[in-house]
């Protein structure tokens, strides 16, 4: 009887491993594929080989990317835009989320619900009027134009996340600080903000990803090649008649690595932050 149960558990574990291994391979394969193409020598880009490390592996594509293409310029543009968007997003969400979590005020439910409704807007619903507005006020082809749009994209999600996290921090902590003579705002940024660090990290990551990986808006607003961000630049390697596979692959690895590392390092926070908002009643 015991043996049978033991055997059953062994079988179930084996099945679990098998499924996990299959899906892990599926998850990793495209990444290895990109790595492989980025290392191929120029005359063997269109190869029918399935080997991961190609024969005569070379870093030529990487070299061309940094020396022969405006890759560094696109990267500078993307970094600049992403940092401004992240800073704005974190500050706005930290403040607004706190109000929604701690205070009763007129328009609170309406505000929270409106934030939820904005998630249902199709991308073009705001993009088209924004585009026409930007043309009319002369912000087309400027970083400010995309920064304004990006700041609002992730904001609803960020505010909800911050609100959910503040809800788990007991209000008695601020009350104690107030009794010690802190002002309302000091109690907020000296006591609550440090405790909300995990949520702030998630919000920062989300805001950053919005700006770092956005293609559709950037493609319409930034028409001047000197202003292009990484996604717009990378797309040109791929969409033309002659796809520049090597450059595309090398560039996408360089673009992805920092985000992926950040994402994986923070995935613990991410899991608790995302489930927290939905689990608590």
């Amino acid at each position, binding site marked *: 009887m015991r043996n049978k149960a033991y055997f059953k558990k062994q079988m179930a*574990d084996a099945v*679990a491993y098998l*499924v*996990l291994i299959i*899906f*892990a391979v599926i*998850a990793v*394969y495209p990444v290895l594929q990109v790595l492989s193409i980025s290392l191929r020598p120029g005359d063997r880009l*269109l*190869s029918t080989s*399935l080997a991961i490390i190609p024969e005569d592996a070379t870093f030529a594509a990487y070299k061309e990317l940094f020396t022969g293409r405006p890759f560094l310029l696109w990267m500078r543009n993307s970094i600049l835009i992403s940092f401004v968007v992240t800073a704005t997003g974190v500050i706005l969400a930290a*403040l*607004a989320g*706190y*109000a*929604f979590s701690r*205070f009763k005020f007129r328009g609170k439910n309406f*505000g929270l619900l*409106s934030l939820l*409704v*904005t998630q249902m*807007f*199709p*991308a*073009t*619903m*705001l*993009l*088209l*009027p924004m*585009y*026409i*507005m930007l043309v009319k006020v002369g912000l087309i082809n400027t970083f400010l134009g995309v920064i304004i749009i990006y*700041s*609002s994209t992730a904001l*609803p999600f960020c*505010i*909800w996340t911050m609100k959910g996290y503040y809800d788990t921090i007991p209000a008695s902590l601020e009350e104690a600080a107030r009794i010690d003579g802190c002002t*309302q*705002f000091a109690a907020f940024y000296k006591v609550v903000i440090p405790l909300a660090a995990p949520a702030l990290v998630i919000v920062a990551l989300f805001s950053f990803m919005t700006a770092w*990986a956005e293609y*559709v808006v950037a493609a319409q607003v930034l028409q001047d090649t000197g202003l292009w961000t990484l996604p717009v630049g*990378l797309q040109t390697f*791929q*969409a033309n008649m002659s*796809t520049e596979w090597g450059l*595309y692959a090398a560039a*996408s690895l360089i*673009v*992805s690595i920092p*985000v992926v590392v950040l*994402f994986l390092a923070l*995935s613990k926070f991410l*899991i*608790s932050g*995302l*489930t927290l908002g*939905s*689990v*608590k009643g």
Partner: protein
Amino acid sequence: MLENNRKLFPYILILPAALVMIGVVFYPFIYNVVLSFSNMSLRNFREWQIIGLDQYYKVFFEPSEPSFYTIFLKTMIWTVANVTFHVVIGVMLAMMLNRQIKGKSVFRTLLILPWAIPQYIVALTWRGMFNYEYGSINLIITKYLGLPAVEWLRSPTEAFLAVILTNIWLGFPFMMVIALGGLQSISHEFYEAADIDGASAWQKFKNITIPLLRPVMIPAITLGIIWTFNNINVIWLVTNGGEPADQTHILVSYVYRAAFGLYRYGYAAALSMVIFFILLIFSLTFMKKTQATKAAY
């Protein structure tokens, strides 16, 4: 003084976010409503006027190739197929990861990978992998499975299937992560009690796992449906803007094309409104039926 301050303080906190939302979300929204009743296009960019419900009439009745109803049907297939596979694969993997096995964190890290990579890179990479002659998917199909190569991006059905496969790949980790969080919060005592009663694995799954996972998954599924319905990146980049011949559009990519490819601003604005109301009505019914907001509040 203090009383006053307490009333004013939340408004001060919200003010910056509210200004951004009003300027960048609500004002454009109203503007979009106005545009949807107008004849604005590239030709009538400065001298546009309100023309009533014409654009809405065009959305539903203008004979176009492909028609609104075909695209709507494709959008439904796209959303249902994606979210179903996301949830099924996600929950299955989460259950595997929730067991006492070695190398758990390694598997978890590898499996989150598709979510961590920027979406546009995923889309463009898969576009390359679906290439007829040199893409690795056809190479695997022909070399290892001995089957004929598939015309992935050249014929409408296969292209649509290719986009769905891509999106399933990049979407399952989100559901897996959510489900894992939910599973970890289920107490072992339930399962131990069920074991004592001699319940089968299926009975335990049906009567313990599903009901206790439900409150965690429902809000995630709601969000997942809205995000998938509205996901323009993947479909646009994998099919290079609806190729072949605009046969692989879902509603959001079609409206993007109407606005920025054909410059039919009024029409695009009306179609955007229609999409928004479809989503709004769906979400409200879904949330009411499943009481998703109960957990969210």
